[in-house]
């Protein structure tokens, strides 16, 4: 295979959720473009981004759905949970209300994804420590109680942003290795890269199975 952007073995599907204005789109932008978008417009419906990362020597393409936080888009965003391998749940450490809503986001996530979906809690805007409204300890405890992974990150400085996306991928990859996550299940949110480039489009139904093995 050639090297470069088209060489990867898996596709992982992520979803980013959380209240309006917590910085979901900025986190995505920081992760895909390594830039901070100062005045990021409100997301309408959904946004999308990709990046290829490496976990345990395997190249993995992340397809990330960034959802609108506004309540009126809830019906739209709910429909994107299905088949996500990773869910990044974001709150704003300077606004307690966004933290208080986490349990409702978590309920949605648990109901609409599958049991193997990795849920990662991100306390965003960690650069604004002076205006902090939610302590690290409190959020950490919430995460532990609910079995979530957790970091505080900053889309502005980039602190911990890589880590959050990468740790999630590592956990998903581990689930694949352990066999807890079935690659062929439609809702797993994990896919193999199409086997060989240039495979005829009109593949017979039997070869529609996208597993390369």
């Amino acid at each position, binding site marked *: 295979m050639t090297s470069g952007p088209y060489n990867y073995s898996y596709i992982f599907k992520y979803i980013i959720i959380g209240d309006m204005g917590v910085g979901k789109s900025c986190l995505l932008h920081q992760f895909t473009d390594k830039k901070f978008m100062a005045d990021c417009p409100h997301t309408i419906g959904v946004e999308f981004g990709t990046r290829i990362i490496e976990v345990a020597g395997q190249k993995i393409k992340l397809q990330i759905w960034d959802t609108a936080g506004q309540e009126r888009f809830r019906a739209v965003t709910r429909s994107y949970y299905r*088949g996500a391998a990773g869910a990044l749940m974001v709150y704003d450490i300077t606004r307690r209300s966004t933290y208080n809503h986490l349990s409702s986001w978590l309920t949605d996530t648990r109901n609409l994804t599958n049991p193997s979906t990795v849920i990662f809690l991100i306390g965003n805007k960690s650069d604004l420590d002076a205006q902090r409204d939610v302590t690290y300890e409190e959020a950490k405890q919430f995460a532990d109680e609910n079995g979530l992974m957790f970091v505080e990150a900053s889309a502005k400085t980039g602190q911990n942003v890589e880590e959050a996306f990468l740790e999630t991928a590592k956990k998903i990859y581990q689930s694949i290795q352990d066999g807890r996550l079935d690659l062929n299940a439609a809702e797993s949110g994990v896919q193999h890269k199409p086997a060989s480039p240039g495979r005829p489009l009109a593949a017979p139904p039997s070869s*529609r199975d996208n597993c390369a093995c």
Partner: protein
Amino acid sequence: MSSFLKYHENSSVGVDEATIKDNVTYYKIKVKVGSVNWHVMHRYNDFVELHDKLVSDHGVGKELLPPKKVIRNKTPKFVEQRREALNVYLKEVLNYLKLSMPYEFAHFLDFHKYDIFFLLTDLAKTLYLEGDNLLENAKSYKFTPLELHAISERLKMACPPTEKQDQTYDFSHVLDFCSQLRSLDVEGSYEKYGTSNIILNELQFDFIPFKSLVNLRILGVPMRCIQSVGSLRDTLVNLSVLTATVISLNEFLLVDILHKEPSSIADTVKWKKLAMINFGNNNIENVDWAIKLVPRLQHLSLSSNKLKELCDISSLHELRILDLSMNSFSLCEKWHAKIGNVVKIELSQNKVESLRGFSRLYSLESLNLGCNVITDVEEVQHICKLPCLEYLWLTANPVASIIDYRVKVIEQFNSRMSEICLDNERASEKELDTARVLQALRVVKEGKIPTFLDNHTSHSFNKS
């Protein structure tokens, strides 16, 4: 275009008529979804094939389909009976499967050609399998306005639960491809699309999913179809908007900006990387101020428009090539004050009478004035001192038909006459000899000293 998910309550099918082609009877199925309709032709055997799948996978009653008949199945009476039976059959099946709309049934009715959701599932599969390949060989990819419209609309919709659980058909593959694509072609049309009543140039779309687009070519799509340029302002380098009845550049450059007033335009709407603009074959009458939103512009092509005069575009410091062929320029006054360091100007097929306006374009290397109305050979006096000019076209002007035209033009360039390439041809030795004689005569006539010396100094000064 059709959106069955939205309008399934307001949709219908019917078998209207039967036609015989090459001794095979085809039934014309009319599909209606909301205000969109189209038709699709199928023979009885196609119905049988579909029916088998629907019976085995989707619980459609086996006895529903009118039975086969082997002999005498072409009599008009029988065909009419069968048409009516198939009409009833399709209506019943649609009614029964309205909510789940299985893939096979949707395909049978050509939903994958006209419906947002089904078109995108097929596109997703294509791009999942071929996308990386297409991106790798870096050719430009063509999306129809129908596909772009579908993508834009789909992003505003909730994604529906479907029986197609296969991730190969997931919409994310489409967006994944779009976000990496570098060269895009869009071609519009005012014709009805396929057998439907959809007109491509009435569909609206945006460029939001295209995050890395470098080259964009729009052909025959009116600007009112474009709702947003997304992040193109940060990435686009080459832009062509051809045959799109554009009247003014800002129709595209500010397409998503509501108040197109110079005073209210922020810096953020600048096209940061755009270097080549081609708006050939439109109805542009003026190069307006919006051009200043493209500070890195190097190549501006406005061939085949309705331009008469240029506005001040000297703020475009990097502009090198200006193609204004097939317009209505006549005077070209003081162009040195309007355009900066342009190297190449194409003005063929205009109405230019005089070369006076070009006399101080000191960076000019190439000037094409073919097919204009220059009559006096002395007009060349205005440009004969341009230090870098090397390529000049005056062919198909009245001046080109006078006796010894070439020699008379070349002669005026004095010491540089051997460097000039007139109408694609350098002066031959013979022409140069004649030119020198003419020059001597001119010296005598005008009583001037031969100008080699000062010409030489000014020449080297300008070159350095």
